[in-house]
């Protein structure tokens, strides 16, 4: 999801500022980027959470039952109030990555998969290390935060945009992926266990989908996924330079949202190096 303003509810202001720039970047580089906004709803019992969410965020309109029905006809009559973040967007991460690889290939950049190589052994004057959690050998303050998600197929519900359902324990969202597929995510657990999704998490995620629309009760479970998000103690990404290696890491749960900004920081670090090499007097200054 490309939801900088929704993320503001629980993250640093910098995430919203940098993430907002990512919306245009993805739209310009990946044609599959959808900008239909995000709808935020809550069960009646969690109505107070909706008010609190509104208090922590901006760039939204309050949506009444009619507006919700107009935005998402399948949710008509199910929620009385919600928040609509019209400027936000979403994309299918796997398709987006594949598109980036294709684009690099068009520019003559070779991409090799399945290569086992440490940054210090890599050839070249500069190495950009984006190994995520595998870079812990170089970045000891990096930790893994477990996330779990479910992909279901449901032909009886159509959503035009990601829907966030406020939940007391999980930042929960349901993202339409087309062809009846929906991604339901995602737990956030301070654990570095990489094992399969737990029953508890699966139940919480599936329950949320069911609460959003009972038709999800008949959905097929296509995928249950779990992995670790790399994070620094402040949960914000960093670019660090050590000799000829530039480390870019710690994107936490904002990989697609903050990657354009992080890439720009890496590019700045590299171009500064290049400029310094071209103009040695600047280095002395």
């Amino acid at each position: 999801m490309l939801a900088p303003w929704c993320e503001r509810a629980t993250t640093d202001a910098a995430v919203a500022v940098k993430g907002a720039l990512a919306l245009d970047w993805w739209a310009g580089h990946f044609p599959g980027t959808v900008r239909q906004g995000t709808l935020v709803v809550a069960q009646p019992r969690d109505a107070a959470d909706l008010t609190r969410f509104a208090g922590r965020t901006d760039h939204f309109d309050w949506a009444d039952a009619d507006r919700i029905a107009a935005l998402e006809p399948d949710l008509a009559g199910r929620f009385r109030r919600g928040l609509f973040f019209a400027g936000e967007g979403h994309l299918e991460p796997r398709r987006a990555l594949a598109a980036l690889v294709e684009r690099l290939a068009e520019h003559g950049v070779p991409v090799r998969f399945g290569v086992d190589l440490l940054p210090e052994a890599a050839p070249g004057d500069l190495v950009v290390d984006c190994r995520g959690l595998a870079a812990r050998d170089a970045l000891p303050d990096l930790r893994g935060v477990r996330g779990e998600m479910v992909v279901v197929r449901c032909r009886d519900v159509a959503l035009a945009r990601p829907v966030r359902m406020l939940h007391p324990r999980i930042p929960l969202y349901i993202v339409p992926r087309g062809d009846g597929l929906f991604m339901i995510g995602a737990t956030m657990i301070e654990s570095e266990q990489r094992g399969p999704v737990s029953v508890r998490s699966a139940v919480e995620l599936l329950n949320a989908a069911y609460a959003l629309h009972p038709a999800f009760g008949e959905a097929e479970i296509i995928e249950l996924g779990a992995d670790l998000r790399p994070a620094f103690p402040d949960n914000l990404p960093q670019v660090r330079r050590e000799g000829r290696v530039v480390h870019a890491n710690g994107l936490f749960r904002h990989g697609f949202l903050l990657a354009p900004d992080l890439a720009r920081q890496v590019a700045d670090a590299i171009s500064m190096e290049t400029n310094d090499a071209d103009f040695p007097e600047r280095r002395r200054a």
Partner: protein
Amino acid sequence: MSFYGVELKSRLLLGTSRYPSPAILAEAIKASAAEVVTVSLRRESGSDRAGQSFWSLVRALGVRVLPNTAGCHSVKEAVTTAHMARELFDTKWIKLEVIGESDTLQPDVFGLVEAARILSEDGFEVFPYTTEDLVVADRLVEAGCRVLMPWGAPIGSARGLNNVYGLKSLRAHFPGIPLVVDAGLGVPSHAAAAMELGYDAVLLNTAVAEAGDPVAMARAFALAVEAGRTAYLAQPLEPRDMAAPSTPVIGKAALGD
């Protein structure tokens, strides 16, 4: 104030979950001057100590860790988690939670008493998360608990003290047992109210962790706890039904015709 012989200056205990980041958690703990933090093992554990990175960050705060059995729904689960906590954190302290109802996270007081007995006999120093029920409290003390942690309101509800009468009554019945209001506090005035009742301390998590500015809110709670305690020691007035004017009304100059 002392818990199981450990002297503490701060009467505010904080949880460590749901903060925007471990860095903000660390700042909030510092701002609160809390000396004890609770850590949940149930979700952050896994069989291979998968929560180690986060626990290391918590340990680095230099405060005393009170591991808890949050999320345990049975005596067996709670006892197993307590053993794991003792090994991981090298402490006999355990905040015992046995949840009886998934929605409200209300304690299963029957399982709680049973688990408290098992763990106390096994050398643990148990901090049971309970209701304000006097009889349950009595059974917990009988089972070996030397600290009681009654709820203010259901976990995360931010409702404050739901049953002031019950909490007062508990305080009166157990003058020698440290009592900590745990759960349900939303704003600092709730904490002050608990301290004004003569409670020894308060424990909270969500009210700080999910505040817009957790660090400022941690400080606000610390101030409220101090204010409430100071007020309690200063012997506040009891409420009365009728007004009690502080200046005499007889003999006042009256304007008339």
